[in-house]
């Protein structure tokens, strides 16, 4: 016993150091996979209040550019509205169309805190459980995919963006004949460029071919823009391409985003839960 106390006395500095270091590293390593405590994120009241003040100060910095973007988006949809089109054949009876059913709804949100220069970048949105946000919903902006909701509090939520280590959104490269499926990753260097893994090198990939979401997991609808292929290179010793893409969205200047709610998700997961598990 005395030896133990003497040992603790002698190494107490190192033991305290090891304890504090252990706590910090535990926090760091566990949060990436599953968030446990909302008070240790920006979703607590004090940090949110500070960020709101800061956002009030800085939200006007990119205002004119954001307004122009929104205006272009409005024009894009206005052109597709039937009541603004010239009617070629008149006098036909219009019946309500039941062939299409709405599958996705969108919740508008504003980014109040963001970072792009870390290894794992999270955005804070000003919508939360009160607006119907749930963990695992997809987030996109006008130009492209942003990320997946990682943590939700009552009025705010945290997005795990595509600029994180293990985001793994399923995307596909649009080609003339077939689409090539792959997984989107980020290597942590430049917020303008991402990577796609798991693409076999039996087909040539054209530069600047479009990359879109595949819509397999029910988080994103099919065909949301992600970016364009900017660079390909064969990986040595493997039958795979190393594909680098340029993101369509500029995450450094992001302000307004949409959260996607898939109305069919419960149906899809209930169906997929019936797949017999292999042991």
């Amino acid at each position: 016993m005395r030896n133990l106390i003497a040992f603790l006395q002698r190494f107490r500095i190192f033991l305290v150091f090891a304890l504090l270091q252990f706590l910090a590293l535990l926090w760091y390593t566990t949060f990436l996979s599953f968030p446990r405590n909302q008070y240790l994120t920006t979703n607590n009241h004090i940090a949110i209040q500070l960020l709101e003040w800061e956002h009030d100060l800085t939200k006007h910095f990119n205002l004119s550019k954001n307004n122009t973007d929104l205006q272009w988006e409005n024009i894009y949809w206005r052109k597709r509205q039937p009541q603004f089109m010239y009617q070629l054949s008149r006098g036909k009876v219009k019946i309500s169309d039941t062939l299409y059913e709405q599958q996705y709804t969108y919740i508008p949100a504003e980014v109040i805190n963001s970072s792009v220069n870390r290894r794992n970048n999270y955005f804070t949105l000003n919508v939360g459980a009160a607006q119907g946000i749930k963990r695992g919903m997809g987030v996109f902006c006008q130009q492209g995919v942003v990320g997946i909701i990682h943590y939700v509090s009552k009025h705010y939520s945290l997005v795990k963006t595509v600029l994180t280590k293990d985001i793994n959104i399923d995307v596909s490269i649009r080609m003339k004949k077939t689409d090539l499926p792959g997984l989107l990753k980020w290597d942590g260097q430049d917020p303008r460029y991402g990577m796609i893994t798991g693409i076999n090198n039996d087909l040539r990939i054209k530069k600047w071919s479009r990359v879109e979401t595949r819509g397999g997991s029910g988080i994103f609808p099919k065909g949301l823009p992600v970016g364009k292929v900017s660079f390909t290179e064969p990986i040595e010793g493997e039958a795979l391409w190393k594909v680098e893409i340029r993101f369509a969205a500029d995450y450094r200047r992001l302000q307004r985003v949409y959260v996607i709610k898939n109305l069919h998700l419960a149906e899809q997961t209930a169906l997929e839960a019936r797949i017999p598990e292999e042991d």
Partner: protein
Amino acid sequence: MNVVYKHTIRFVIFAFLQAMVFNQLNIGFGIHLMIQPLYIMLLPFELTVIPMMGIAFLMGLVIDIISNTYGLNTSSLVLMAYLRPIVFKFYGPREGYDPLKEPNSQDMGASWFTVVYGILLGLHSFWFFLLEIFELGRIGFILQKTIFSGLLSFLLALLIQSFILNSTQKK
């Protein structure tokens, strides 16, 4: 001014400047400006290492909570607080430090400050980026981030000292 008050006020200012201003800046080239190591550096000489690690832990916690980095700042600040007495002992004068002086560039001289703070900041930044990237294959990128961020943060530290020392030492 009372030493405790002075360092408490500094704690608040440094933590919020780091979290709200310097963490939001995006300069490019992997540069991440850090002023929180300077706060640990400027704590008084006679503070023992265990309370210092506690202060470092708190500081890291505040910054991590505001900027969503989950323990990254905490871990590297605690490491720096643990290493500070060791580096101080190594580069200290033979008769020990004068408790009336502060570990800054004005009281201790620019060359002492450059060597000691350079070593501590370098180790802090290296640990920070090593943890953040956590891939040994990308050691070149880690070193690039460490060197660029370290150099700029050092210059920033000199600048900040010229502000706070001028205002506090002319009593």
